[in-house]
C-alpha cells in the first residue's frame, strides 16, 4: 500500500511539473543571457525563417530548416512550435506537424485563434480520426467574417474526411508497399511513375542533381524536373534509371504523365499556357521531341495536367480545370483522331473537388484516378471505377494503407493487377518523395482448419471434416497481354511492323500498333470478351495472323509470341489462323471474313501471285474422312476468293488430312495447331 501511495505521489508530482512548466519560453536575454551568441544565431534563424514563412505566397519548406535550427536552441517557444507545425503541414512530411502543434498549444493555449483547426489537421494527417474530429468541431467558433460559411463548410468537409478515414482504416486492404529502391529513387524527389502494361519499363519524373541544365527552380529552390527511365533486368530488378536526355528533357521542367501500354508513346506535361499536354514517340531506343497535343485537348489558359491513353491508343483521358466542368479539375475523354470535343466524364466520376492523375487499365474498362471528393480520407485519394453497361460504376476508394490522409496521386497499375506504382513521402524513403511499388495481395486468403468427430457411437473411427466454407476463386484482371519480338524470318533481324488487332466477329479493326524499329518488340492488350485476329504485316512480307478467342471473363494471362515475317517467295507457307469452319463441316464461319478479305487483298495487290490453299486436320478420326474434309475446306476458301473475282487459274486447293502435322498430335494444343488452313506460294 505504501508503495502504491508513493507511486501515486510521484505521478502527481510529475503531472504538476509538466503543467506548471507548460509556459512559453521567450528568446530573450533574460532567459538566455549566458549564451548570447547562441541567442543571436537563433534569432537570426527565426528571422530568416519568418521571411520565407511570411512571403507571398508563403514558402514553408524553405522556412523549415531555419526554424528547426532555432528550435534546437530553445524548444519551448509557443510561436516557434506553431510555425514549425504549420510549415510541416505544408511540407511533404505533414504528419510531423502534430508534435509541434501540440507543444505550441501546451505552452500557450491561446497561441493562435485557429489552433484547433491546425491541431485537427495534424491529427487527421496522423490518422487520429476521432481526436481530429473533436478539434475540428472545436475550431468552428473561430470561423468569422464574411468567409465564415465557407470556412465552416471546409471544416465540415474535413470532419467528413475523418469519418471516411475511420471507416476505411477499419478495413485495411492487404498490400505490400515497397520502396522501388535505389535504382529508381534518390535523396531528391521522385514521382509520377508510369509503366508499360507488362512492367518491363518504368518512366518517372525526378528533381535530382543530374538534371538537364542542372539549374534550380528559383521558385522552390529544387532542381528542375526531368524524365528518367528504367527497365527490368534479367533478374527482375530495375536497372539504374537513366535521364532520357534531349530532346525530351530540357533545362526547364519536364514531367511524364502517361505511357502507352506498349511503352512506345509517352505523355508529357509542359508548363506552357498554364499547363499543357504533349506526346512523344519512341523511335528505336530514342524518344523524339514531345509535340503539343492540339487545341482540342490543350487550352490557352487552363491547366491540362495528367492524361492516359486507352489501351487501343485511340482515346485519351485527361485532366483539365477548364471552365464548364463540375468543379475544380475534372477528367475528360476525347477521341484523339476524331473531331468532336472532349467530353466531361460526368458527376459519377467528377466532383466539385479536384480530380487528378487518371490512368486506364489495359483491360480497357477500369479507370484509376485521384480525387479530393467522393469518400476521400483527406487530400487526394486514389479511386477505381469500372465502365460497364454504358456507365461508370461508383468510384471505390482503394483504401487504407494505399490511401492516406495526405495526397495520393498519380497511381498506375500493371495489366496483371498485381502491382501498382505511386509516389509517397514515407519514413523508409531515401529522402523526399519516393516511388513505391504496391503489391496487391487480394482479399484475405482464409486458412483451412481440420477436425474430426466420432459421429457413430458404435464406431471407433472418427470422421474428418474440413471446417469453414471453401474460399471463393479470386477475380483477376480480365485482359491478355500479348507481346514478343517481330523479326525477318530469313535474316533474324528485328523488324518494325504494323500489328493490327481485329474483332473477328464484327470484322472491325480495333487498333493498330507498330513494333519498335530497333528491338522489334511489340505489346498489345487484349481485353477479354472478343475473338481477336492479330495481323502482323509489313510491306514486302507476307502477313502473319494469330487468333486469340478470349471469352468474357477470361482471366489475366501474358502470352509471349515472337513472330518471324516471311518474304513473298515461291514455296513459302503461311497459316491462316483466323479462318473458322463450322464443326465437322466445310462451311466458312462469318468470323473468317476479315482473314479472307486480307487474302483477297493480297492477291489483288500482287497480280502475279499464285497460291495453293490447303486444309489440314489432326489425327483424330479416320484418315480418309480427314483428307476429304480438309480438301472441302480448302476448296471453300478458293471458292470464296473466286467469287470475289480472283482468277481461278491462280488458285489450287488440296486436302492433306493429318499427313503434314506441324506439332505432335499427342496434346490438345498440338492437335489444335494441326487443325489449320494455310497457303503456299506457288508462283509470283
Amino acid at each position, binding site marked *: 500500500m505504501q508503495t502504491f501511495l508513493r507511486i501515486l505521489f510521484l505521478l502527481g508530482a510529475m503531472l504538476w511539473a509538466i503543467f506548471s512548466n507548460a509556459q512559453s519560453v521567450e528568446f530573450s536575454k533574460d532567459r538566455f543571457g549566458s549564451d548570447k551568441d547562441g541567442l543571436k544565431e537563433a534569432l537570426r534563424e527565426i528571422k530568416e525563417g519568418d521571411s520565407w514563412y511570411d512571403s507571398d505566397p508563403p514558402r514553408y519548406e524553405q522556412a523549415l530548416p531555419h526554424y528547426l535550427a532555432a528550435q534546437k536552441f530553445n524548444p519551448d517557444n509557443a510561436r516557434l512550435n506553431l510555425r514549425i507545425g504549420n510549415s510541416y503541414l505544408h511540407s511533404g512530411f505533414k504528419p510531423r506537424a502534430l508534435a509541434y502543434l501540440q507543444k505550441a498549444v501546451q505552452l500557450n493555449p491561446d497561441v493562435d485563434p485557429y489552433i484547433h483547426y491546425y491541431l485537427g489537421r495534424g491529427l487527421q494527417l496522423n490518422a487520429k480520426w476521432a481526436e481530429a474530429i473533436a478539434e475540428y468541431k472545436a475550431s468552428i467558433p473561430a470561423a468569422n467574417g464574411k468567409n465564415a460559411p465557407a470556412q465552416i463548410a471546409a471544416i465540415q468537409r474535413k470532419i467528413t474526411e475523418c469519418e471516411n478515414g475511420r471507416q476505411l482504416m477499419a478495413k485495411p486492404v492487404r498490400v505490400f508497399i515497397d520502396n522501388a529502391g535505389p535504382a529508381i529513387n534518390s535523396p531528391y524527389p521522385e514521382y509520377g511513375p508510369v509503366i508499360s502494361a507488362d512492367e518491363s519499363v518504368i518512366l518517372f519524373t525526378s528533381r535530382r542533381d543530374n538534371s538537364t541544365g542542372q539549374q534550380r527552380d528559383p521558385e522552390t529552390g529544387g532542381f528542375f524536373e526531368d524524365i528518367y527511365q528504367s527497365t527490368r533486368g534479367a533478374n527482375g530488378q530495375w536497372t539504374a534509371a537513366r535521364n532520357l536526355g534531349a530532346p525530351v528533357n530540357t533545362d526547364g521542367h519536364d514531367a511524364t504523365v502517361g505511357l502507352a501500354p506498349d511503352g512506345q508513346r509517352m505523355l508529357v506535361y509542359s508548363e506552357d499556357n498554364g499547363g499543357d499536354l504533349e506526346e512523344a514517340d519512341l523511335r528505336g531506343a530514342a524518344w523524339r521531341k514531345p509535340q503539343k497535343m492540339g487545341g482540342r485537348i490543350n487550352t490557352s489558359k487552363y491547366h491540362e495536367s495528367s492524361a492516359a491513353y486507352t489501351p487501343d491508343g485511340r482515346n485519351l483521358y485527361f485532366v483539365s480545370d477548364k471552365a464548364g466542368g463540375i468543379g475544380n479539375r475534372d477528367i475528360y475523354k476525347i477521341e484523339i483522331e476524331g473531331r468532336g470535343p472532349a467530353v466531361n466524364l460526368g458527376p459519377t466520376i467528377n466532383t466539385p473537388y479536384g480530380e487528378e492523375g487518371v490512368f486506364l487499365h489495359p483491360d480497357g474498362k477500369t479507370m484509376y484516378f485521384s480525387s479530393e471528393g467522393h469518400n476521400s480520407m483527406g487530400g487526394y485519394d486514389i479511386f477505381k471505377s469500372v465502365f460497364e453497361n454504358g456507365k461508370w460504376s461508383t468510384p471505390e476508394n482503394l483504401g487504407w494503407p494505399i490511401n492516406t490522409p495526405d495526397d495520393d496521386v498519380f497511381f498506375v497499375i500493371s495489366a496483371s493487377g498485381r502491382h501498382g506504382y505511386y509516389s509517397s513521402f514515407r519514413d523508409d524513403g531515401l529522402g523526399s518523395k519516393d516511388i513505391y511499388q504496391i503489391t496487391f495481395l487480394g482479399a484475405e486468403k482464409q486458412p483451412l482448419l481440420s477436425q474430426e468427430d466420432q459421429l457413430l457411437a458404435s464406431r471407433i473411427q472418427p470422421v474428418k471434416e474440413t471446417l469453414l466454407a*471453401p474460399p471463393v476463386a479470386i477475380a483477376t484482371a480480365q485482359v491478355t497481354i500479348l507481346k514478343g519480338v517481330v523479326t525477318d524470318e530469313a535474316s533474324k533481324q528485328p523488324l518494325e511492323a504494323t500489328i493490327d488487332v481485329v474483332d473477328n466477329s464484327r470484322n472491325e479493326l480495333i487498333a493498330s500498333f507498330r513494333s519498335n524499329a530497333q528491338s522489334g518488340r511489340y505489346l498489345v492488350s487484349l481485353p477479354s470478351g472478343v475473338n481477336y485476329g492479330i495481323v502482323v504485316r509489313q510491306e514486302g512480307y507476307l502477313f502473319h495472323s494469330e487468333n486469340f478467342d478470349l471469352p468474357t471473363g477470361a482471366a489475366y494471362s501474358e502470352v509471349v509470341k515472337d513472330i518471324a515475317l516471311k518474304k513473298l517467295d515461291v514455296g513459302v507457307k503461311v497459316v491462316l489462323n483466323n479462318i473458322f469452319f463450322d464443326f465437322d463441316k466445310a462451311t466458312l464461319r462469318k468470323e473468317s471474313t476479315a482473314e479472307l478479305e486480307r487474302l483477297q487483298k493480297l492477291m489483288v495487290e500482287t497480280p502475279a501471285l499464285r497460291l495453293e490453299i490447303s486444309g489440314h486436320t489432326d489425327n483424330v478420326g479416320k484418315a480418309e474422312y480427314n483428307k476429304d474434309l480438309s480438301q472441302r475446306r480448302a476448296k471453300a476458301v478458293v471458292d470464296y476468293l473466286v467469287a470475289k473475282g480472283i482468277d481461278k487459274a491462280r488458285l489450287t486447293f488440296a486436302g492433306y488430312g493429318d499427313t503434314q502435322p506441324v506439332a505432335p498430335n499427342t496434346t490438345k494444343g498440338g492437335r489444335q495447331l494441326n487443325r489449320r488452313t494455310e497457303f503456299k506460294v506457288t508462283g509470283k
Partner: protein
Amino acid sequence: MLKTLTLTAAFGLTVAAAQAQVDTVRASTLPPAQQAEKLYNSGVAKYNSKSYRAALLDFDKALTLRPDFAKAYYNRATTRYELKDYQPAVEDYNQAIRLDPAGFTSYFGRAQAREALGQTAEAELDYGKVTEVKPDYAPAWYYRGALRFEKADYAAAKADFDAAVKADPTYAYAYHDRASAERKLNQFPAAVQDYTKALSLQPDLLPALLNRAAARRRAGDLKGALADYNAYLDKKTDNPTAYTNRGAARYEAADYKGAVADFTQAIQLNDQYAFAWNNRAAANLKLEDYKSAAADATKAIALNPQYAEAYLNRGHAREMLRDDQACQDWRKAAELGLEIGTSYAAASGCGPE
C-alpha cells in the same frame, strides 16, 4: 460394447432353452443326439467363460454327432465371430438359417460377420431381413442405419434410427447416431436435441458432448458449443481431438490466442496429431505470426505428406513472409484436391509452372 451386449442377449435365449433339455437326460449312456446336446451345453459354458477355442471344439463335435443341430451352428458361428474367423462364421450362419429359416438371430449374426468382412451390401440386406422378421428388434434398425450413414445415405440412415428409437425408446446410441445423421442433413436443432437425449439416457456417453458442440457450432451457437467443449474437457483432459475441436471453435469465435492454447495442448498430448499442427498454423496466420504458422504447417505436412489444407495454409504464411515457395505450396494443395490453390497461385503472380 453394445455389439457384445446384443450378442450375449441373443445367445442367452438359446442357452436357456438348451439347458432345459439337459436337465432331463442322463450323462452316461446317451444316444448321439443327446450326446450332441451335452457337448453343445459344454460349448455354451466354455463360451461364457470366454474359452472360445475349447467351445469351438465342443460345437464341432456336437455337429458331427447331429448335423441338423441348428443352434449348434448358430453358436459355433458366434464363437467363430468372437475368434474373428468371420468367413467360417458366415458359413455356419448359412447352415443355421437353412435349418431354421424362421429365426432372426442368425440373420443378425450373419449381418455382423459380413460387416466385419467388409461385405456391407450383404450385411445391409441381412439387417433388413431382421427388421422384416422382427421389426421390434431395435439393434437391427440401428446397425443398418449405421451402415447407411457410412455410405453417406443420411436420410435413409435417419429413417432407420427413427425406427430404432421407436422400437427401443431408451436406445442412447440410436439417438446419438440419429443426431449425427441430422447433423449431416443440416438439421442442426434436431441434432442438438437428439444428442441431448442420448446424453440424458447415458450420461457417460461423452463423445455426444463433442458432437453436440459441433452441431451447435454449425447452428451458429458458438457459445453453446464452447460450453459443451468445456464440459467435456472438465471430465476428460487427455483427448487431443477434444482440444483440437475446441480450438477450432475458439478460432471461429475469433479467439485466436485461445485457439493456439488449445492446439498446443493437443500437440502436447499427441505430437503426431497433424490436425492440431495444421490448425495452430491457421490460428497463427490470424495472429499474423507467419513464421510460426509456416513452421506448424511444415510439421503437419511432415506428419501427413498428402495434407492439402496444410499446404494451403503454409502457402498463405509464405506469401506473407515473401517467400516464393508459397506458389509451390498452393499448387501442391490444388494437386491434392483443393482447387482454390490454383487461383491463389494465378492471382499472386506465381507465373507459369
